[in-house]
């Protein structure tokens, strides 16, 4: 099931590009750079960031939970030894 969902992500993503979804909605920040990032590159980055950003937030969330429990159990084990 998870595998199927993962397979769907690129399809949805490709459709968004193909249909020309207006991704320039949330913009009010001025970027200053000596390097031209390129219009198409910026737009794909904004789209992609909204996709992978959610995944990254989840990853961080689970990493914190895992770190909390490993600390918790490590602490408990050392308490038991004492």
């Amino acid at each position, binding site marked *: 099931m998870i595998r199927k969902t*993962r397979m769907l*992500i*690129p399809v949805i*993503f*490709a459709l968004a*590009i193909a249909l*020309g979804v207006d991704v*320039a909605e*949330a*913009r*009010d*920040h*001025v*970027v200053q*750079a*000596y*390097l031209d*990032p*390129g*219009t*198409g*590159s*910026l*737009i*794909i*980055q*904004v*789209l*992609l*960031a*909204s*996709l*992978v*950003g*959610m*995944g*990254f*937030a989840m*990853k*961080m969330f689970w990493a914190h939970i895992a770190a909390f429990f490993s600390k918790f159990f490590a602490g408990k084990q050392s308490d038991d030894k004492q």
Partner: protein
Amino acid sequence: MTSSNHVVASSFRDPNGFVFVREGTIYRQVNKMYKPDYDFLMESGLYQSLADAGLIVAHEEADIDLAESDSAYKILKPDEIPFISYPYEWSFGQLKDAALTTLRIQKTAFDHGMTLKDSSAYNIQFIGCKPVFIDTLSFERYKPGQPWPAYRQFCQHFLAPLALMACRDIRLSQLLRVYIDGVELDLASKILPARSWLSFSLLSHIHLHSRSQRQFSGKQVNTKSYKVSKFGFMGIIDSLENAVRKLKWQPKGTEWGDYYDDTNYSDEATTEKAAIVKRFLKQIQPETTWDLGANTGVFSRIAAEMGSRTVAFDIDPAAVEKGYLAGVNGGAGNILPLVLDLTNPSGGLGWANNERMSLLERGPAQAVLALALIHHLAISNNLPMQKIASFFRKLCSSLIIEFVPKQDSQVQRLLATREDIFPDYTKDHFEDAFKKHFAIDAVTEVAGSCRTMYLMRRLSE
């Protein structure tokens, strides 16, 4: 390298500063317009954090009177890089490690409230097998909501060539020699195999990225403002890191990758040859050594162990990759393995043929090793002996060279499929040609083989 005073030719795009040479020493001028970012870099602890981790070339602040112009805010004196190399000379592993180092630096910068404003592969240099970031002016303060300005450049300089090398053909690294700002994504998308569309990272960062570039090319869109959340920004970097990590290439199946398993040299002769190389190198005591046709760098190690800064060149990306991986996994750390076709060495590239130095501009080396090489140049590439000798003269002041005669089975192998049109390929003719440019200081037969080793010293003009 030249010791005259000049601004380094590759340092002109960034208005925040430039690199210049004064009395043979390299300096970097930081312009006043970069003051807020430079101060933030130093005061936020980012520079120290990167320097402590060996990720950035360390510098000290030098006398402001050295400034090349009134716009100077600071003059920096960075540590010296032993040998400047370029991405088209790196093996797969080197380009991959350079990419991962760039992303690691970006993540560290982000933790300190900064970001990289560009991600050129030319900002990375190798000290031995260790990648180091050299552009101190590439950092800017992160502004909440900003996208990563270096995203396109990272995809072109790192992800696209790595994907092409891993998924299509290792030799496609040479596209970087043609496309100095990285492989254009529409080209990469065309060359990559169809299966790359099933990889989410290659689909998004290369295929759809190139289509997005095409779709919005020349269109009137307000590009000055786009928002990317903090998690979105970190997600992009994380996604690029995953994409790079997933790309793998095994060094096998190329021309010379298994050379040492398939040679006519006996163990005794190899040991003898190594002893001769060591004896000759002790006579020269070179600070810099170039091993040409080094394969995986077996003989380069002798120079490196004597403290010489050694570059091991070979035409075969598999041999260079093996040498690099050996260095990374605990081998001689001061050897830099590089891919180089000696019959077509890296030329001066970029604007005015000046941005990237040719091989000759990066020399001469104090010592050159040319072991089991002469027959490949003279017979496989039809190079006259005089031309080989005069080229070697430009490369080094001392030369350790091995002559491989026609009766050697390796030469016989080269002649097996072609007519022998090389009546001049003899030891006498070889010596005559080289004597015009070098004095022969020592000649030694390699016991257990029919080969001869020479120690030569360049004649003064």
